């Protein structure tokens, strides 16, 4: 017999602590849709995505009813579009519009893969795609874009970093009448994972199978609630252990849903990404977990250490619970999506410099940070370069998703609504970095020995 305590624990997790399956994301390869005629290519893209995903939303909803567990998002990731654009030529925005149309027709809420991988240099289609990102994101609703500008093996492509600073700024400019929302759908990566199910950085890597189902599980609220029940003098070993056990349970649920969804859709199961992804809902916050561990407010001294332990314990629990852990797996720290981080940023406890240190130990990077609108493109490039350097040297994924708030002043709030939340404009260092950024070229790949 299933024990009553376990049943009540599961129900409390779902009902009061916001436990959910954050996303089921179908990854689809579009390599077989390449055509030298862009219109034919777009038609093939539409047909293939529609054929494979027409039942995705319905299947997700059926599983929700069977297990009584919310599946918040159903999404699609595709092969980086720069590859298709390289074959077909023409205006890449046509692809963005095709992706947007198919996403709306099948009922998913985001489609990722308007992407280019340029960590070592630009090939055919890459530069055209990157330059078209501002228009693509302004003229579509559901398309997400990402660009990989560096890796531990290749170094950092500083020409791409320079270009991306301009692209981020222009994307915000083109959507300034809609809270600069375009920039919230654009991620600049170093060491981008090929199987990440979370937006806005999801794309279907070229090493992936034709079609695969990836699952993203979340649950910061559950971890916080578990820690809240623990005595304040429990040692950090015990804290880490409790996080691990909680992560285990959450991941098992993801494994169950992923296996069931992949069987129903007839698509192989890819990976589970166990990431503590906060939402603006009160209680569903990573900052609150750090505060529960014993910090007065997220961002103060000790935050990096607490986050390092949290991130590692989450991974350990997740790996034990599933044979297919992948993606980003860890803790996310998107400022505007996390009630506790918003408070800490408003109070001035959480600064960009501290966030940068935190990205060295968590699973992603500078995420959903609102910058002053007049920030020069070269400064955005420099922020990207700093973050990419942390990823490159530490052999981890880092990313930058910053939103220059065009037309707003420091201290004002940008409100995106929904899962993207709202964020105060954060202060940045105003000294210029333009000469370094304008140099261009590459930062060579780092040593993998003599590590000190």
């Amino acid at each position, binding site marked *: 017999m299933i024990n009553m305590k*376990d*049943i009540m624990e599961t129900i409390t997790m779902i009902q009061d602590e916001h436990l959910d399956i954050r996303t089921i994301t179908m990854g689809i390869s579009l390599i077989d849709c390449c055509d030298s005629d862009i219109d034919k290519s777009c038609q093939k893209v539409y047909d293939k995505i529609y054929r494979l995903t027409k039942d995705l939303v319905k299947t997700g909803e059926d599983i929700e009813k*069977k*297990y*009584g567990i919310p599946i918040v998002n159903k999404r699609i990731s595709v092969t980086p579009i720069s590859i298709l654009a390289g074959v077909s030529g023409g205006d890449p925005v046509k692809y963005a519009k095709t992706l947007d149309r198919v996403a709306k027709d099948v009922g998913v809420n985001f489609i990722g893969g308007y992407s280019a991988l340029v960590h070592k240099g630009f090939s055919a289609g890459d530069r055209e795609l990157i330059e078209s990102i501002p228009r693509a994101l302004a003229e579509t609703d559901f398309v997400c874009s990402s660009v990989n500008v560096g890796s531990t093996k290749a170094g950092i492509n500083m020409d791409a970093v320079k270009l991306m600073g301009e692209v981020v700024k222009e994307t915000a400019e083109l959507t300034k009448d809609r809270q600069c929302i375009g920039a919230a759908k654009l991620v600049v990566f170093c060491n981008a994972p090929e199987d990440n199910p979370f937006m806005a950085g999801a794309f279907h890597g070229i090493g992936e199978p034709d079609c695969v189902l990836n699952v993203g599980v979340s649950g910061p609220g559950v971890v916080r609630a578990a820690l809240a029940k623990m005595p304040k003098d429990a040692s950090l070993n015990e804290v880490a252990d409790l996080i691990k056990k909680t992560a285990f349970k959450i991941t098992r649920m993801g494994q*169950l849903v992923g296996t069931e969804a992949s069987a129903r859709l007839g698509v192989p199961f890819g990976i589970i990404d166990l990431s503590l992804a906060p939402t603006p809902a009160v209680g569903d916050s990573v900052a609150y977990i750090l505060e529960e561990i014993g910090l007065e407010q997220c961002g103060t001294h000790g935050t990096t250490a607490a986050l390092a332990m949290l991130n590692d314990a989450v991974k350990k629990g997740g790996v034990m619970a599933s044979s297919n852990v992948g993606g980003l797996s860890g803790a996310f720290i998107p400022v505007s999506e996390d009630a506790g981080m918003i408070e800490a940023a408003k109070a001035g406890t959480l600064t960009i410099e501290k966030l940068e240190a935190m990205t060295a130990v968590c699973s992603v990077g500078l995420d959903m940070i609102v910058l002053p609108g007049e920030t020069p493109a070269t400064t955005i490039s420099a922020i990207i370069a700093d973050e990419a350097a942390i990823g490159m040297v530490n052999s981890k994924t880092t990313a930058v998703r910053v939103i220059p708030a065009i037309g707003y002043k420091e201290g004002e709030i940008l409100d995106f609504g929904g899962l993207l939340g709202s964020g105060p404009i954060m202060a940045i260092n105003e000294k210029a970095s333009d000469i370094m950024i304008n140099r261009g070229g590459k930062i060579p790949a780092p040593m993998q020995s003599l590590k000190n």
Partner: protein
Amino acid sequence: MRAVITVLGKDMVGILAKASTACAESNANVVEVTQSVLEDYFAMIMLVDIDKLNCSLEEMKNRIEAAVPEMKVHVMHEDIFNSMHRI
């Protein structure tokens, strides 16, 4: 296959009777029932066999909710508990 039905809320007369009638109407065989009343807070967990269900799991949940409208009802497939709490 079995499902776990939980009914939570303020205690009153006939909750078990009404919930189990709704199960019977859906042709779900009640395998086990645990209930506890703490002061006036009522919590019941039923394990039911759903192999011969004459409707969908969702429909059964709707029927139970209609039978005890004041209570919070969850209907969940047992697999979720087995996978979360067993290695």
